[in-house]
């Protein structure tokens, strides 16, 4: 926590305006450049379409694996856009300007992770139950799946931002992001699928699983901004 102390000595910093302006800037960039939401949804659709083609058109099998398959597609799509999270801002130096400003870098990290969630996790979580029809998703699971995905994707974006921060200065960062983030995604995946599967596996644990999923999201919310900001700072010194 040593890196907070000097700033606290200068008195409290007003953080919300900075947070909002970074969110507004990055969101505008993502929308105007186009592609980021489209790529995520396109990739998501590709996985969903390829799955029945690979496994065969058995409706019962598809219904059984639908929640898990949708979660895998969500995870891969979020990972796909992860390594570009800080890349452009690091390359053109805007990240250093943000690091030098009075706003803590942790707030900038949080803002960027929020935008990543708004442009990949959230649209996918909304689209997933709709694409679920392609996998014969049980209609009773549409609402739990949507809730679990909206919640879980927050953690996915936060962890992806950590992976992106750790590899921002590296040439072959993309591959490394997957290796680093995969172990962190395991708990999110397990409780995400459990929270969206209802009583499929016999006993209905989805409520408990959702609570644990929320706990994981909160833990990620506490740990990742500090870890990501520390990693970004080490690349800038």
């Amino acid at each position, binding site marked *: 926590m040593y890196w907070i102390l000097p700033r606290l000595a200068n008195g409290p910093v007003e953080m919300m305006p900075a947070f909002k302006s970074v969110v507004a800037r990055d969101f505008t960039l993502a929308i105007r450049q186009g592609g980021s939401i489209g790529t995520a949804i396109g990739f998501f659709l590709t996985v969903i379409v390829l799955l029945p083609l690979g496994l065969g058109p058995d409706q019962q099998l598809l219904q059984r694996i639908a929640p898990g398959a949708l979660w895998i597609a969500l995870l891969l799509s979020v990972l796909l856009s992860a390594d570009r999270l800080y890349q452009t801002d690091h390359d053109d130096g805007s990240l250093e300007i943000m690091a030098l400003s009075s706003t803590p870098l942790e707030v900038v990290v949080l803002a960027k992770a929020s935008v990543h969630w708004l442009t990949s996790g959230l649209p996918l979580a909304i689209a997933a139950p709709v694409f679920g029809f392609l996998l014969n998703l049980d209609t009773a699971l549409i609402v739990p799946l949507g809730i679990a995905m909206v919640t879980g994707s927050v953690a996915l974006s936060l962890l992806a931002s950590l992976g992106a921060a750790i590899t921002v200065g590296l040439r072959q960062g993309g591959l490394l992001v997957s290796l680093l983030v995969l172990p962190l995604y*395991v708990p999110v995946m397990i*409780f995400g699928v459990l929270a969206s599967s209802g009583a499929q596996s016999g006993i209905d644990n989805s409520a408990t699983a959702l609570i644990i999923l929320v706990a994981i999201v909160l833990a990620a919310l506490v740990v990742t901004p500090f870890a990501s900001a520390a990693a970004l700072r080490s690349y800038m010194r």
Partner: protein
Amino acid sequence: MSSIERFANPTRFMRLQTTVQPWVWIITLALFGVGLFLGLTRAPADYQQGETVRIMYVHVPAAWSALMVYTVMAVASIIGIVFRHPLADIAAKAAAPIGAAFCFLALATGSLWGKPMWGTWWVWDARLTSMFVLLLLYLGYMAIWQAIDDPRRASRIAAIVAIVGFINVPIVKFSVDWWYSLHQPASVFRTDGPTIHPSILTPLLIMGLAYSFLFLALHLIAIRSEIGTRRIRQTELARTGALQ
């Protein structure tokens, strides 16, 4: 704090390591001798598994050590990142390949044990899965050191990876246990028999101690070689004029 600073000096560490190293090797070999002798010849064979149960004396301590080494790595990383302790960074880096090897050994012997017991090389068992995730954490940590050239920057980034991974390990363990208990297949080999008899427990604990000393021996050598590598690098850089 004073003792931490005392051993921060690499030269002092090198001197200490030279004196301690032979003794650590002697203790390691003695423990392995006793542990393997008791485990392979004196301990009883299992009434169900026969002689294959003896894989346990290699397998279980390897899994313990893999977890212990990750803890050592994470603690060294915390000391390195908080106190800017140069030797702690080196200790964390040196521990990773050894821990990964223990982890791989645990997975490989588990696989060899699983073939006669479960009839298959790999089962998505809760323990296997969490060990596999631990191996991935080790590989990610080592990949960071590979990818970043500047050792000071690499040590800070790698420390962040190790600490986040350390927080992640119990969460993965918990989630995988939960996941496995829901998907548990009908017939499964039970490891939790009745209480362990001393004739099995004693060699197991001796083997655990032997692995710990093996780690200590290898770790000391790995730290020494890392310090040497860095000194060569410094000398080379100074000679070619890159450090002015």
